[in-house]
């Protein structure tokens, strides 16, 4: 494996981080919205959100990615591989994130909400001033843990040709007829990324407590 090949792996790592990061950036608030809808028992929307979460939690990222990449254009909407990749990861991680947010909401002390209501705080203000400042601390370790799982699922988007780490490694392998060295190097890159995230998780757990995190 040449130095140039390694550089293209690093490019792939950049792309993995970029696309996963974009997925997380969309998926975390989307998950929060789903959790709020279910928590507040919004009519019509709440059961839909529940079905969405259940369905997406049992859908393989590979299959979802193929669906989005091939089926969305049949609706007359053009979609590039990157966009399809980001969308896949965002939709998957939103389902898992919503469960983390929801656990935090369900465990939120009721007496605090009662107190806020007694002071005449409207719902939006209660959410912004009372719930959220505490909720995000409780949910953070779980969210970081889910980010780790998302990175591990991200090679799924290689199926539609996004040149992230895995795709870059197979390409180098195909060019050099020696697939093993680029695969090992790619594995090393993933391990490095995930170790950083695991370290981050330990840090936030220590800092904000362990509630909401799951192995």
């Amino acid at each position, binding site marked *: 494996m040449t130095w140039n090949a390694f550089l293209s792996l690093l490019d792939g790592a950049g792309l993995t981080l970029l696309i996963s990061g974009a997925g997380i950036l969309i998926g975390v608030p989307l998950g929060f919205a789903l959790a709020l809808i279910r928590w507040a028992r919004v009519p019509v929307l709440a059961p839909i959100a529940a079905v969405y979460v259940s369905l997406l939690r049992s859908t393989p990222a590979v*299959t979802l990615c193929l669906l989005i990449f*091939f089926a969305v254009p049949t609706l007359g909407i053009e979609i590039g591989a990157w966009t399809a990749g980001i969308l896949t990861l965002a939709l998957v991680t939103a389902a898992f994130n919503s469960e983390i947010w929801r656990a935090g909401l369900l465990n939120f002390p009721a007496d605090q909400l009662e107190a806020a209501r007694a002071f005449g705080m409207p719902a939006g203000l209660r959410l912004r001033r009372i719930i959220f400042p505490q909720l995000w601390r409780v949910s953070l370790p779980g969210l970081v843990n889910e980010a780790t799982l998302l990175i591990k699922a991200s090679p*799924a988007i290689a199926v539609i040709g996004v040149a992230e780490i895995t795709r870059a490694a197979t390409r180098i392998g195909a060019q050099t007829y020696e*697939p093993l060295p680029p*695969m090992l190097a790619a594995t090393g890159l993933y391990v490095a990324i995930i170790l950083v995230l695991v370290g981050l998780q330990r840090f936030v757990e220590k800092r904000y407590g362990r509630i909401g995190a799951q192995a």
Partner: protein
Amino acid sequence: MSHGFEIVWEHSDRLVAGLVNTVVLSLLGAVLALMFGCVVAMMLMASNRVLALATQGVVDLMRCVPFLMLVYLVYYGLPQFGIDFDNWTAGLAALVLYNTAYMAEILRGIWKNLPRETIEAATAFGFQGRRLYTRIIFPQVFLAAGPMVGNQLIQIIKDTAFLTIIAVPELTQAASGIQAQYFVPFAAFIVAIFIYWALCALVEAGTFAVERLAEVRR
């Protein structure tokens, strides 16, 4: 405009064949991983510190690797050692290898939290070695492991979809095949996704039933 569901229905035999492979791979992978996981859990719990730490290192490393990378490493790596697999077997080997680490970690976590007293009582009654593990420790570990093993089985089912990349004829591969031939992407993949959903719901129901049996035994 047709959505292609009737085409998918016409070729449902291909989906069923894919589903059978997905189920067989998942179950076989889970059972074998659980068996090897027991051995690895024993190594993790060994009183020999060097063995326990070395095993922990390998398990932690494995849990940092994306499943698809391990599939590739097995698929490309083992032939270099003169071991030649067909794709199906390579996929199963990767599933087992990968999930052994997860299962071992699940079992170890439960084992560590087992009440020490019941094990001490067994020691006092003359249990030791293999019989202590098979009669006293692992039955208690398994009774508590239901929900976590169920979760892992769902993860395994989803991971089998990665095997489409090395052309294992599982469910996603079958859906891909139908979509490539007749260009019915929406119908083909949506049907596959709903089948995955049903499979996972089945696992959850099974986990629930096992939990009710286990509840009284702890």
